[in-house]
């Protein structure tokens, strides 16, 4: 039996507010993206996606995600492992550092790398002397993206690992398992859904990041453009159909992410029973 404490009118008002808000701010924009993308027909839509600059931007975005996600996966698992299973000095400092990118504007994150690696930056002269390009090239994009996505995996895992404690690992040790085997056979399987969840979020952020990447990329078409940057360039050049066509790809990525996220969330809840 369902227990109802609120009068019917209150429930309907609340539901209506939520639905209207959801429709206005989430569904409508999404519909607009696809409508604008197809406003000049399928031919223009596919041409925009097949344009060499668009393909280069997609490739850049893919490469970024392919490097950033594994880096953050390893860092995230290691950091979460350290923070949740061990006590050490500076633990709170590490936790604050993990959260730092969430409280710093992405533009500032990008600027940090310019100040470090740019021509006028701290390491700039040395890099120029050795002919290494970081800012306005792909390494800068990757560094900036790693910076903004650092918390994504670790923050997912820390609460899960904390609540699980260390008893299962200890049990595995007394049963003769080495530390390595304990890690792969007990610790990792216990957090597998948390890892997947973190990776999905991390990937979405890595592919969608605009601010930090915009500062360090230099917007060189066909070379250092990612998809979000490409959308902006096209839009500024009044090619709105093409801009929305590329944007629609990002929107689809978002939808896929949402679906994957809810499936994984359901599995995490199942696993915690």
């Amino acid at each position, binding site marked *: 039996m369902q227990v109802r404490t609120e009068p019917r009118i209150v429930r309907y008002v609340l539901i209506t507010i939520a639905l209207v808000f959801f429709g206005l701010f989430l569904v409508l924009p999404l519909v607009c993206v696809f409508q604008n993308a197809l406003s000049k027909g399928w031919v223009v839509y596919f041409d925009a996606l097949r344009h060499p600059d668009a393909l280069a931007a997609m490739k850049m975005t893919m490469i970024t995600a392919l490097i950033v996600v594994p880096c953050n996966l390893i860092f995230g698992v290691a950091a979460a492992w350290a923070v949740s299973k061990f006590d050490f000095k500076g633990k709170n400092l590490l936790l604050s550092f993990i959260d730092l990118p969430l409280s710093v504007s992405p533009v500032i994150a990008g600027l940090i790398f310019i100040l470090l690696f740019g021509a006028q930056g701290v390491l700039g002269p040395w890099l120029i002397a050795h002919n290494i390009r970081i800012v306005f090239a792909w390494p800068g994009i990757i560094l900036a993206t790693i910076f903004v996505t650092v918390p994504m995996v670790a923050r997912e895992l820390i609460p899960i690992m904390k609540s699980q404690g260390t*008893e299962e690992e200890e*049990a595995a040790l*007394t*049963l*003769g398992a080495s530390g390595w085997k304990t890690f792969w056979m007990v610790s990792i399987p*216990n957090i597998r859904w948390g890892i997947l969840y973190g990776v999905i979020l991390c990937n979405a952020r890595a592919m969608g990041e605009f601010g930090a990447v915009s500062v360090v990329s230099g917007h060189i078409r066909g070379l250092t453009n990612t998809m979000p940057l490409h959308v902006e360039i096209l839009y500024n050049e009044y090619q709105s159909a093409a801009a929305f066509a590329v944007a629609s790809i990002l929107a689809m990525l978002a939808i896929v992410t949402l679906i994957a996220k809810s499936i994984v969330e359901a599995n995490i809840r199942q696993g915690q029973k």
Partner: protein
Amino acid sequence: MSIEVRNIHKKFGEFQALVDLSLKIETGELLALLGPSGCGKTTLLRIVAGLDFADQGQVFFGDQDAQNQKASERGVGFVFQHYALFRHMTVFDNIAFGMNVQPKKVRPSREEIRKKVMELLKLVQLEWLANRYPWQLSGGQRQRIALARALAVRPRVLLLDEPFGSLDAQVRKELRLWLRRFHDESHITTLFVTHDQEEALEVADRIVVMNQGRIEQMGTPEDVYHNPVNAFVLNFLGNVNFFHCRLVEGKAIIGDTVLDVPGLSVDKPHPAKLYVRPNQFKLSRYAGKGTALKATVEYVNPAGTVVKVNLKTETGELIHAEISQEEYKHLKIVKTEQVFVSLKDVTYSEHLKNNP
């Protein structure tokens, strides 16, 4: 395999968990570490298992110093209070884990592992649960699986940390009888930690009573129960009443009353605290030969193997007594009636320096 710990010291920050503790557990013995929470008993068990390390002191398995042996090399079966079953594995895989992680050269074949797991499931009487996951089992079932898992690696010693602590009373009783029977058949050296005196008294060959990181007393259950060496052990092992009194040869003076205390010899009169177990009181309707304390019955509960009687003396002291059902039938006491209380025996008397 015997276990010996020598002069163990352990500190957690400022907290002194174990103080110069030495103890030997003989081969084939079932020994209970009994004490209140925070007394260091679990820490000692974890040090034996290699899950924690002493600041000073040594651990021996037989003649072998375990100093450089990791937890995974000590050959101990460890059972946790909260089971610590691998949540993502079936019951079968949980039990097989210890064999599956062995190096390829010594690992039994799949068929051998399967046979061994089924054998252990039969031992704990849960064959039908092989394909379930831990979250599908009850607490008692989980703990039996945890025991089977610990036994699968043929441990040299079995270490149990409050194994029945999170189970309800009925299951707890069943499991500790099972453990006793299992030990009688397997004779595996077993060290088990508990804060439940009843559990320790019922199951163990020998009890070590601990308090604040030290051993207070060691002995058979009978020994520690009947001949406690100090007030702490006495208080910890069962209910007890105490009286401030003055002791003279064979007698205790409580207030204005002089009570006979059988079997008590005193060199010279001194003030004391007298400890009396609930079953060491004699109640009667009439003042007998000796003198007795006058008391009013405040509460009678005949539901049980013994009859519990709460009394209040004239001076306002409360007495918790237990009498047999026969005595109760004979006395027929009810609430608010007056009775005379004398002593059949005392458990322990503590010499006090000053007059109470």
